[in-house]
Each structure stands twice: as C-alpha cells, then as structure tokens.
C-alpha cells in the first residue's frame, strides 16, 4: 500500500496489522524516552489547508516519535494563500524530497489528486465531507481495546452523517472488520444514496440504544440549523442528543465515543462525556499510536 486515502484502501488483514502495530507502538508512549529510530532520515510533511490542531499535533507527535523529520506546512501566510495551486504545491514538496505528505483539505478528493502528482505516500488527514481514515482506525483501536473485539460489535453512529468524514470512514472500516453499523440521524442529515452503504439506518435513537455496544456521537455544526437541516438546537438535542437517561438504555458494557471537538449539551451531555463509559480522551491518546503505525507501515519498509 502506497497511500492511505480512504478506509476502502484497507483490507481486513491490513487494518488488523495497523491496529496490532499500534498496540506495540503504544508501549513507546509509556517510556521515558518516547522515541524510536525507525523513520530516521525520512521527511514527513503535514500539509494543512484547514485548521485542525488536534489532528495536526497527533500526526506531528507520531512522526517525531518515529524520528522522522517533520515539516508542518500551514496554508495561512504561505504561497498557497497567495493562490498557488495544489499541483504546484505538490511539485514543490516533491522537489524538497517529502517521503510522506499528510494532508488535511476542505475539498473532498484533494488527497486523491495529490496522490496522482507525488511519488511519495499521501495520508488523508480529512478531506471535505469525504473521509478521515486514521480517525476510523483510532476509533476501531479504541473499541477493540475496550471491548476486546470488533467482529460482531453493534455500533451506532449518531448525528450529522451527511457532512461527516468520520462517519464515512468508520462505516467502511467497521464493515471490513466485521462490525454492524447503524446510522442514526434525522432524514435530512443522511445522504441520498446511503442505502448503498454497508450499514442500516434509523431515525430513532431510543430504539437503537438497547442493542448497541458502541454509540459514536458526531459533532453537529450549529450553522446547519440555518440551512434547516433541523428546526432548532433544542429539538435536535431532545431527539438525537445523548443524555444520562438515554445512556441508561445502553447495555452495561457499552461505550460512548466522540471524535471531538464536542458541543456539550447539544449532541452529548457533559455528564455523559465525562462518564467512565466515555472513551473520548482515550481516542486522542490512541490517535498517536495509530498514526505511528500508519507512518511506520507506509514508510518503514522502504529503502
């Protein structure tokens, strides 16, 4: 595998290898010297067209723990802000010897375009409303760590599926790994064509909860209300927000996830976000290990 553009790029065997490798690399984080020499001499470029502090820092930490040279290229104030095209930026990175480019972009498919212009690896760190495959990997890692397995798990993904790259990547990866996904949202926030996805859909969160091992809440952007995807924040929270009474409908062992950043009180109640069932901070920690594994597997084996 040269690039990681979509969760579809991962077979069950490859995805499992990433998760297993992440498990081994996670031990490094617990050491006093949090560093391996694996990618010494390699250059990883973080190319961020969108602000995303947590994803950028996560990739940066992952690359540095593997001893790679990290260049963070933020678009603000750069030649890109002056109108340089994505292709010209790609050719510049190529000329500078980038072995891997981690790209976050507001346009769906931008990493696919980059992959066509670069010899090195491209890792999709979130593109528009398309995918965020390393988020799906860290979510799967977290589920497996907490519940011991992925095959047969019942996962409810709740909220703005229409605009969510996290949901798209999770549906694909979890299907590949044998979990059953139910998408829960108002009909306005489910894409036309969702019936072709390997997931079931529901408009009724309360009906789905008793049979869920995992509830993954998605961030809802408040500006969606202006576009009439739902009538009000209050109504959304009432119908699709995860509060304490709803959590009580979950099986005893079930966990609550959120990719962050959260709208506390909207899609998730504060007491739920901070409860022992919540894996939200674990997801952040696991993100570094999973991204180390991805970089290691994409770059580690090459000369």
């Amino acid at each position, binding site marked *: 595998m040269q690039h990681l553009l979509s969760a579809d790029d991962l077979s069950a065997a490859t995805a499992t290898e990433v998760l297993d490798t992440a498990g081994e690399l996670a031990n490094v984080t617990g050491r006093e010297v949090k560093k391996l020499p694996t990618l010494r001499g390699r250059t990883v470029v973080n190319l961020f067209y969108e602000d995303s502090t947590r994803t950028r820092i996560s990739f940066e930490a992952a690359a540095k723990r593997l001893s790679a040279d990290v260049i963070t290229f933020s678009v603000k104030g750069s030649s890109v802000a002056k109108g340089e*095209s*994505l*292709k010209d930026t790609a050719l510049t990175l190529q000329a500078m010897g980038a072995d891997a480019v981690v790209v976050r*972009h*507001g*346009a*769906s*498919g*931008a990493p*696919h*375009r980059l992959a066509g212009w670069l010899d090195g690896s491209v890792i999709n760190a979130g*593109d*528009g*409303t*398309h*995918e965020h495959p390393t988020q799906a990997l860290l979510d799967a890692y977290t589920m497996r760590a907490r519940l011991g397995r992925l095959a047969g798990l019942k996962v409810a993904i709740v909220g703005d599926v229409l605009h969510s*790259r996290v949901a*798209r990547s999770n549906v694909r990866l979890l299907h590949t790994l044998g979990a059953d996904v139910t998408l829960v949202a108002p009909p306005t926030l489910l*894409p*036309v*064509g*969702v*019936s*072709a*996805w390997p997931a079931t859909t529901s408009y009724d969160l309360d009906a789905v909860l008793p049979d869920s091992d995992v509830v993954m809440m998605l961030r809802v952007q408040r500006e969606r209300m202006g576009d009439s995807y739902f009538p009000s924040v209050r109504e959304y929270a009432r119908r699709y927000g995860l509060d304490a009474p709803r959590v009580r409908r979950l099986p005893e062992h079930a966990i609550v996830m959120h990719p962050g950043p959260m709208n506390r009180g909207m899609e998730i109640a504060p007491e739920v976000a901070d409860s022992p069932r919540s894996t939200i901070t674990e997801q952040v920690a696991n993100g570094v290990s999973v991204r180390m594994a991805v970089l290691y597997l994409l770059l580690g084996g090459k000369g």
Partner: protein
Amino acid sequence: MTSFLIKGVSVVGGPATDLRLRDGTVAEVGPDLPTTDAEVIDAAGLVALPGLVDMHTHLREPGREDAETVATGSRAAALGGYTAVCAMANTDPVADTAGVVEQVWRLGRRAGLVDVQPVGAVTVGLRGERLSELGAMAESAAAVRIFSDDGHCVADPRLMRRALEYVKAFDGVIAQHAEEPRLTEGAQMHEGEVSARLGLTGWPAVAEEAIIARDALLAEHVGARLHICHVSTAGSVELIRAAKARGVRVSAEVTPHHLLLTDDRVGGYDPVFKVNPPLRTERDVAALREAVRDGVIDVIATDHAPHTVEDKECEWAYARPGMLGLQTALSVALSVFGPDWRLLADRLSCQPARLAGLTGHGVDPAPGAPANLTLVDPAAQVTVEPAELASRSRNTPYAGLQLPGRVVATFLRGEPTVLDGKAVK
C-alpha cells in the same frame, strides 16, 4: 470558386452516388457524373451528411481567450464536421447587447470556418434580474433568435414568463439551463450513491425537473417557444414527453457526454468529468438514448466548454465544470446509436438548424441545396488524443478512448474547411 465532384458517396446512408458542388450549392446528384473541370474527391465508402449544427457551444471570446477563441473553436467545429455553431452568451463581457453579439458574429465571419450564430443573454449580465435588450439583439447584424442565460437558470418565474412572451415578437426561443438554484447550492456532482460515497454535495435530478415542469407550464400558458438545454435525467425526459403530447412548443437537447458517461466516472475526483448538469446514472443514460431515438429529444448538442489546464488541474471542488465536445460529438453519437445516418443527420444537423433558424443549414445534400456538408468515414476508428485537438483547451473526457468514425471533409457553402481530416486554414 472551385467546383468539387465527390465520387461514390452515400448520401445519408443511401446508395453510392456522385455529388457536384458548384457556386456554393449542390449542383448535381447522380451516378457517374462527368469530371469536367472539377476537383475530384474519391469518397467511396464515405457517408455525406448535411453539415452538423451545434446549438450549444462556448467559444469563450470575448474574455477567456486563453481557453478558446472564436477562431480556435471554429476550427475544432469544422474538424468535428460542423458548419454552424451557436455561441453561448456567458462571455466576458456577457453577450447581452447588440454590440457584443455583433462582435462575436464578426469574429466568426473573419474565421470563416463555420457560421457562428451568437446566442443572446436573456437577462443583463446573466444576473436573472432584468431582461437584456432582446429586440436589439434580434435586429442586429447577428440576427439573434436563441436567448439563453446558459450556465445560469432564469430562476425567477415572472421574469421567465416575460422573456418567453417577449421573444414571440421575433420568433425567438428561450433556451433554459434548467437548474433550481436553491436545490443545487454547493452541488458538485449528481446526487446519489456515488456522491454519498465520495462526500461531494449532490445536484439532485429534481432541481432540473422542477424547472422544466414549471417552464413547460409557462410556455404553454403564453404560447411561446421553450428550448431545454442539456437535458440530463430520465424524469426530465418524461416531463418533456408529456408537454409535447399536450402541444406545448418545447424542444430539447442532450449532450454526447450525457449519452455515454455516468456518475461513477467521478470516482477518482478527476475534474475532467465535472460538468453542469452533472453526469447521471445508467438509468438516466438509457432514458436519454431512448428519447433521442423516439424524438422527444430533438437535438444532440455539444455544450463544448473549453477550460484551461489551470482551471481543471486542481481540486474537484474548485474546478470549473465543462467538457470539450465539438471534435468528438459525431463519433460519440455514432458509438451510441450506430450507423443510423438518418437519425444522426436529423439530431445533429436538421433539427438544430431548424430550431436555431439557420436556413442554409440542416438540409440534405440534394440539387439546389446549400453545399454545407460533411463527409464521414464510418469504418475508421479514432483514438482521442487531447494534445491533437484543435481547441485551445484540453479538457476532453474521452482521452485515450477509441471511437468510431472520422470526419474526412467538411464543406461550408461549397468550400472545404476540412480535407483529408485536416483543417484547410
């Protein structure tokens, strides 16, 4: 003026015969015509069609001469077998005055490769707010008869009604780009399974169909002529079929790419497949093909939309929509419909000429007819090489594809614009 004797050609799929072109007209048709002083063209195995007429071309001049000029677009048209093209109004400045349409018309005359018939904008600046001086454009040297805000929909129903009514005074037609703008805000491709997977905002079929339904009712109400540009959905076909059955004066066109390509081509995010309206589904393609066959869709029009490399070699979301079409339309139509020459001549020449009011075009080669014609080698196979296209732009969705048929020669008023597959000037 040279006279030409075209030997052994099949006229619109008929038996082999000879054609003599003299003084801008077809002088004689019959077997074994004497050579006399004519230049002889051996056309055995070739098919003669009335010169093709494109109702929907973007020539980009004035304003975006880096993408196309009237001259380069005219050459691409001639090489594609066209003798007339209708140049859309979304230039810069917009063709919304007599001055701009006359400029485009004169540039076409100067290029001299095809008749360039300007389309006038329906509204000032294509802004959809108030009518352009439609009458002045109709009375100009360009004698505009088709008015369109193509690229934009005339969305205001009252303004659309007024436009339809007003152009009745000079037998004009409003060519509508049917796209309900609120339903397509941010739209990037056809709304369906593929857009859901790719995370691209969908352009729903109903956004086209809602406008067609509305405009057919308006045209019926005021008794005016309505033309629907680049129809792309099965639902649109049914609406047009129903309107025609009621006697509404509505005509419609479809592009070659909507007859051949589907939305799954978007999978690699290559903006060469980004077009407006977007590529639809197999079901839509099947319905469009059937509608061309049964005449519900009158015209195959290219929507030739040249764009520079910079406007296409970028992220999908930022790329301009549009594809080249003039040099590949006949081959694509041939690949879809086979050698049904009567059908191809009708949809690619006779009907568009009739609807655009281009009286010298769209007439089968027959004694006394204007010598606007195209000779096609149906046995040839051509691989589309973007670098070899005459357009100033390279955005063809057919790169590397082998297509049937090759335009061997094109004659405009008896003079060749293309011979042996090459532009004469």
